[in-house]
């Protein structure tokens, strides 16, 4: 899994995780940099240097323990839950989300699916702190989400578009991405559209959704945000960008959120995920 850390870890842990030990997030990032020399990917040498020591990796390890532990009123683990690739399958699940789930007749992302598992299989109430607390490295949500996401490190983004609802949500998400609104007349594309690639907001080099080899890093969440000292989710990033745009708050788990996430994941299709990532 995470080569650098593995060296320092007890042998037992190495045995458990070595099946995934091919690449670290840093390996994936350096692979992209070698291939593209992108000024977006290379803008922070510290980032490239630190990514394999990201505290989010520990968040993910804690999540692995939570995932496997019997929890909730029903006292069962999450191992029977379906994240899109069948009950209990986490490897490669994160890069194929959001996707359509027949059991809810909805397009759902990883976060929503974790909530679904906790509330249906494990029997947690919707307002139980384990379900309700979504932000911060100390939350069960961020731990479990990071664990599942780490199991897709290095795999190409490949959200399915075989169900008509998946296509509809992806296309609505693109519409939302280019929609200008709010007090500053911004759309997401103002800063992440085709014309924005490698331009700077102050000192930050921007990535564009039309450059998949950059965009994969942009959408690789959970990521440890150095400025906030917490692992953050994709939904947290979307909420933050709308807030900066002076719109108002996009709702957690809403279909609007799923549409944006469907579009942004599709835009990185084929490029390797960096999970967990590290960001400013």
């Amino acid at each position, binding site marked *: 899994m995470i080569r650098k850390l593995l060296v320092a870890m007890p042998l037992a842990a190495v045995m458990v995780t070595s099946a995934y030990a091919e690449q670290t997030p840093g390996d994936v990032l350096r692979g992209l940099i070698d291939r593209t020399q992108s000024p977006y990917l290379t803008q922070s040498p510290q980032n490239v240097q630190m990514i394999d020591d990201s505290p989010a990796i520990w968040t993910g390890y804690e999540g692995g323990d939570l995932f496997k532990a019997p929890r909730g009123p029903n006292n069962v683990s999450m191992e029977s839950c379906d994240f899109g690739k069948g009950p209990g399958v986490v490897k490669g699940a994160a890069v194929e989300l959001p996707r359509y789930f027949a059991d809810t007749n909805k397009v759902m992302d990883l976060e929503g699916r974790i909530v679904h598992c906790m509330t249906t299989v494990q029997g947690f109430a919707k307002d139980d702190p384990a379900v309700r607390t979504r932000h911060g490295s100390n939350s069960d949500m961020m731990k479990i989400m990071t664990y599942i996401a780490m199991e897709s490190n290095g795999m190409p983004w490949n959200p399915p578009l075989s169900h008509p609802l998946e296509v509809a*949500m992806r296309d609505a998400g693109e519409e939302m991405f280019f929609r200008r609104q709010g007090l500053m007349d911004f759309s997401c594309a103002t800063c992440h559209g085709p014309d924005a690639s490698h331009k700077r907001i102050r000192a930050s080099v921007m990535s564009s959704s039309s450059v998949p080899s950059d965009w994969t890093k942009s959408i690789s969440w959970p990521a440890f945000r150095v400025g906030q000292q917490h692992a953050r989710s994709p939904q947290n990033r979307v909420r933050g960008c709308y807030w900066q745009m002076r719109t108002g708050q996009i709702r957690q788990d809403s*279909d609007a959120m799923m549409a944006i996430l469907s579009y942004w994941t599709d835009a990185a299709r084929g490029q390797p995920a960096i999970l967990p990532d590290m960001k400013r």
Partner: protein
Amino acid sequence: MLMKKSRFAAGLAAVAAIALLAGCAGGTDTAASADAKPDYTKMTSKELADHLIFNGGFNLAHETQEGTTVAARMTQDNIQKMCTESRNKPTPEQVGKIVAEARASIKYPEGGIKLGDWKKGRDLAWSGFGYRAGHNNDNHASREVGANCYNCHQIGTDRTGGNFGPSLTGYGKTRGNTEGTRKFVYEVIYNAHSYFPCTIMPRMGYSGMLKEESISHVMAYLLDPESPVNK
């Protein structure tokens, strides 16, 4: 103020219209109307995007600092609509409409356009504070609302600005602090679509984000011969 009210009213009308279309009038702002959910696959992507935004996607009732609600912020006005539709490449016909509308929107200070205090302007040009609403709300009683210029422009040489817009370093020195330049800069800050239809530069006078006095300070920062921008 009039403009604000009519934008807000238009916003409510649009919300109501969409709710009617979706067959769930009265339940506009709930995520819980799942049983009344229309068939997403039968809508165009634009219809679906609007539906998602106005039916549970955003906290529409949330009050904004300008005294409206998020519903008004999410409702597009003509210029936003035309620039979205054309992906910021307006047809010649749209260009005409946008420029005319933008020009008509500009209100000038009584007593003429004057330069304020470049020191205050420097702080405002850097600051990104103000009007953010949602999980946190900028409290305008605690700080001055900023102008965000540095996000997109290099201006002084002591700080790193963005490059979405052209560098404004030495602006007053090269353009001259003349009445014509002052008018142009005022109009660009107030509503840049009057010169650059479908520009990404926010309409900070028109939207009310920047009050007359703040505009005068930012203009001084760009144009005053004493400002470090022109040294």
